[in-house]
């Protein structure tokens, strides 16, 4: 009955994409909990658009994509974080502007450079075929770093997320944590973008956290549930996309949406009983 599952995993590009994708989903979910709770979820979206623009430029100039894209997106992450922390500038509007400009640059560059035969849609909506083994290695490293960040600094991540001014008043270097979170988010977004596409990656950041918050009431349980939901949804999404030859990124997003509805339903039932 599950023959197709083994068949799916026997393709090396498939198993590579699934492994990398699960690691990226895990990272996105962990970082997403903080980002969503701090009302920074726009940043994930903005970064994916910047990533798309940077990727397009890298392709047009014939550069290897990741070494060019990652630093650009990290820089953007630090800038976007400053913007949303600044109450004088309308942070969300500024992010929207930067995002759409990057997208416009990306589309223009891609359509002007004749030498590239990759189609735009694979960048916008992702492709499991472009995951190389060096991408996989990078994803695994990212996973290790994000997990370490959370394990070692978990208490401080909570303190900063829950009440930043208390954290700062009691001597914590909150800027450092915010910057670290932004950098890790940037790398997560770039790696995930290749699989999920620029348009869809931010859902990996937002959905698991929101889903977990439907049912969980402590920070620890939200974090763990979001991580579990995210990895599960990614795997199911990939399997479905393989079974029905549906686009991978879109399938993963739809499964995530399904999980959200499921958790919401359980919450309704719980509240009624």
């Amino acid at each position: 009955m599950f023959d197709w599952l083994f068949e799916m995993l026997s393709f090396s590009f498939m198993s590579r994409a699934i492994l990398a994708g699960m690691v990226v989903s895990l990272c996105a979910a962990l970082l997403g909990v903080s980002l969503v709770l701090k009302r920074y979820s726009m940043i994930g979206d903005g970064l994916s658009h910047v990533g798309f623009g940077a990727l397009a430029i890298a392709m047009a100039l014939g550069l290897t994509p990741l070494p060019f894209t990652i630093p650009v997106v990290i820089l953007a992450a630090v800038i976007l974080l400053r913007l949303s922390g600044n109450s004088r500038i309308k942070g969300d509007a500024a992010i929207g502007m930067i995002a759409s400009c990057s997208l416009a640059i990306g589309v223009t560059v891609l359509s002007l450079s004749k030498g590239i035969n990759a189609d735009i849609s694979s960048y916008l909506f992702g492709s499991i075929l472009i995951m190389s083994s060096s991408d996989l290695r990078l994803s695994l490293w990212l996973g290790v770093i994000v997990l370490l960040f959370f394990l070692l600094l978990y208490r401080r991540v909570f303190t900063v997320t829950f009440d930043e001014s208390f954290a700062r008043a009691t001597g914590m270097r909150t800027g450092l944590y915010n910057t670290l979170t932004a950098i890790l988010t940037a790398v997560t977004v770039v790696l995930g973008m290749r699989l999920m596409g620029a348009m869809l990656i931010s859902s990996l950041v937002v959905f698991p956290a929101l889903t977990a918050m439907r049912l969980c009431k402590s920070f620890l349980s939200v974090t763990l549930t979001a991580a579990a939901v995210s990895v599960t949804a990614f795997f199911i999404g990939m399997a479905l996309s393989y079974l029905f030859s549906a686009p991978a990124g879109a399938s993963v997003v739809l499964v995530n949406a399904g999980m959200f509805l499921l958790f919401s339903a359980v919450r309704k039932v719980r509240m009624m009983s």
Partner: protein
Amino acid sequence: MPLITANDAAFAYDGQIVLSDVTFTVNQGDYICIVGENGSGKSTLMKGLLKLVPPARGEVRLGDGLSQDEIGYLPQQTLIQRDFPASVREVVESGIRSRRIFLTRGDKKRALDMLNLLEAGSLINRSFMELSGGQKQRVLLARALCATRKLLLMDEPTAGLDPVAAREMYKIIEKINREQGIAVIMISHDVQTAALFASHILHLQQTPLFWGTAAEYLETFPGRKFAGGVCDV
């Protein structure tokens, strides 16, 4: 040895000075109450003492015996979102400054002790967002107490409490101040009660109108006017 010294400090938002000429010192064991009308700069001064707002002029200095991570802080009607998923235990324990990944048993006991001190020990496994305003206030005060053994800054700790609970809160704060020798800086609108417990009063109106002992304050004009009911209307 002073814990904090403000020397001719002024504070500004966007270049607009909202509070100026603040000079005072906080010593070990002091119980200072900051009073003044809405918008007179009380919260701003507290943020200045905590280095959340840098002084536009003058300086704010922590004493040699005090580092930033030994200060407890209870923010005004905190800006924490109402729907933040956190248990009371997580919130209180977040006040404990420790570099460890896992808290020691002693740390955990300290968190529970602080909650018990505020007669809120039974809340420990509850969800923070489901508490009433007064219960939240106690939990956040317990968090602030976990963070310090020396200096506690509180921005309107009795806001949102019923009169009995507010009275209780003043007693607890006084006990903490007296028994544990923790210096207290508190913002309050309830001048009469505050003057009863505090050792010093700082009355702000864009600049200090009065700085001295509570007894002196009750003798002077701003004290009488303010304590005489302006607040109670």
